[in-house]
């Protein structure tokens, strides 16, 4: 695949995604950004907003292995990572054999991650960070590309275990899924309330292509001024004490520049623009800042505060 072809490839992906998903264009774009940067994302939205469908469709389009983990309070770490099972050989011998868990896939949807216990969350997050699973004395590498998309519901907080800040920092983006527009909702009704037609999706990107694009994403050039601007935004989250209690870490600076590069590549540009940084600042920073009482008093959410940091 050539660089000139990338824009067309992404346009085709979006076109195919739109056959299944109505609206949610920005959500889909941010999911692709997450894939290109080889990072994980957390998707926050109310039930019924096509979160799972989006991820499933994405994996179909990229010819990637997809698995889903429905998090519940009784979910054990071994339910995610896998476990040893006893296997009987032809000669009657019994051996322990590793049975890989759902984490051994290219795209993993961790549904309602905040419903799992901290122990299980840690097992998942460790696998995400290290990109390997250790069981006893054996270590199993996860297959590349590896992308975890966790979802969480902003309502119904009872009986949940919210992700600690240190762990949510490991997700590159926090993607907010908004409700569809009226017209879009009518289209959804037209599409899914009548006869359900089987939509044939053509895989557009192969696994190798995606790995190649992940490599290219890191090579997208960025001007020094823009790099400084991105870092300035992140450092300002730590200085803006009037609205922010705790700011973002340097990991956010790396993430912001990387996400901006991926966005530029997706848009078919060979350079990062200021718009890329401004657009990606929201999903990169919104889960990395903790607002103080003054921000709450002014009825400001994370996005409103981030907006004040952008030029």
């Amino acid at each position, binding site marked *: 695949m050539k*660089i*000139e072809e990338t824009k067309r490839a992404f346009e085709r992906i979006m076109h195919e995604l739109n056959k299944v998903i109505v609206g949610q264009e920005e959500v889909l774009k941010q999911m692709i950004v997450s894939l290109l940067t080889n990072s994980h994302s957390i998707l926050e939205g109310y039930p019924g907003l096509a979160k799972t469908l989006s991820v499933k469709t994405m994996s179909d389009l990229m010819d990637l292995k997809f698995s889903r983990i429905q998090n519940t309070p009784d979910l054990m770490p071994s339910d995610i990572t896998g476990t040893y099972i006893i296997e009987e050989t032809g000669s009657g011998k019994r051996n322990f054999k590793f049975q890989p868990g759902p984490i051994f896939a290219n795209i993993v949807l961790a549904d309602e991650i905040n419903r799992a216990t901290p122990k299980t969350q840690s097992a998942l997050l460790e696998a995400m960070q290290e990109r390997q699973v250790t069981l006893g004395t054996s270590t199993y590498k996860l297959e590349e590309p590896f992308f975890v998309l966790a979802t969480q519901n902003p309502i119904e907080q009872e009986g949940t275990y919210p992700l600690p800040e240190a762990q949510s920092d490991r997700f590159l983006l926090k993607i907010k899924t908004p409700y569809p527009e009226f017209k879009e909702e009518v289209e959804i009704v037209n599409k899914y309330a009548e006869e359900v037609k089987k939509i044939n999706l053509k895989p557009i990107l192969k696994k190798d292509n995606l790995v190649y694009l992940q490599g*290219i994403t890191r*090579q*997208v*050039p*960025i*001007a*020094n*001024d*823009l790099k400084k601007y991105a870092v300035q935004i992140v450092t300002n989250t730590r200085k803006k004490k009037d609205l922010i209690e705790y700011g973002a870490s340097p990991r956010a600076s790396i993430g912001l520049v990387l996400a901006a590069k991926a966005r530029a590549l997706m848009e078919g540009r*060979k*350079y*990062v*623009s*200021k718009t890329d940084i401004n657009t990606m600042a929201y999903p990169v920073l919104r889960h990395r800042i903790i607002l103080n009482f003054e921000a709450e008093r002014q009825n400001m959410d994370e996005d409103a505060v981030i907006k004040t940091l952008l030029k």
Partner: protein
Amino acid sequence: MSKPIAKALGELKRALIEINALTWILDTLVVFLVFELIFFLLTLPWYYAFVPAGIYVLFHAYRGRKNLTYHYVEEKVPELKEQLITAADNLDKEYEIVESLNKDVLKNMKKTMTSYFFSFGKLTRELLLLFVVSFLIIGASAYNVRFLDTHEAIEEIKNYKAFQDYDVNEVLLEYEEGDPTADDIYGEKSIAELGNEQLMLELNPILSDADISKTKEPEHRKFRSTVPTEIAASTDASYEESIPKGYQKIVKSYFREITK
């Protein structure tokens, strides 16, 4: 600097310096000639015009720095927006995508013309101004036109007595010393208060009252009567005009009788 993009960027920088130098020289020349004309009309030495021209050179050098940056080029050539600086900042990278960007930048730079950085309107105005000011200088020297002899004016101002002799403190002192009734050795208090920009007004109610100790007999004065001893009357032509001819005689005799 072996890469084509590096060479192109070097050439672009040189072109920017040349363009900037040209406008700088032209602007400075305009400033110099305008002041030259002003100083000539004020009968001041022509070389004084170097001072404002020198100040302008410094100002231009300070302000013109931004015209030598890639930001300025991107402003003038929208096709290169955000690309040129990125290419310039990533000259050391040899990735496929960077090379591809460099090619795009080179392609767009070829389309860029020097005229993008010239303001022809400004250039024409400046040349016209140079032409006009030069002719004015020649004309003024040929006919020896002078608005003011500055040296003479300065001398006059220096020798102006009114200003030299006048000392407000001295005047105040004279006023103070000249008052023999002043009780206070520090001078008139009211003056000091005026000096502090304070004015105290005191209304003395006694002055408005009648002082019975100063009463005297009424004076007998003779008043001249303003009523004239003789009264004369005359007719007005306007009466005759408005009175019908048949009655004019009766009216005339009536007025004659009254005057008697």
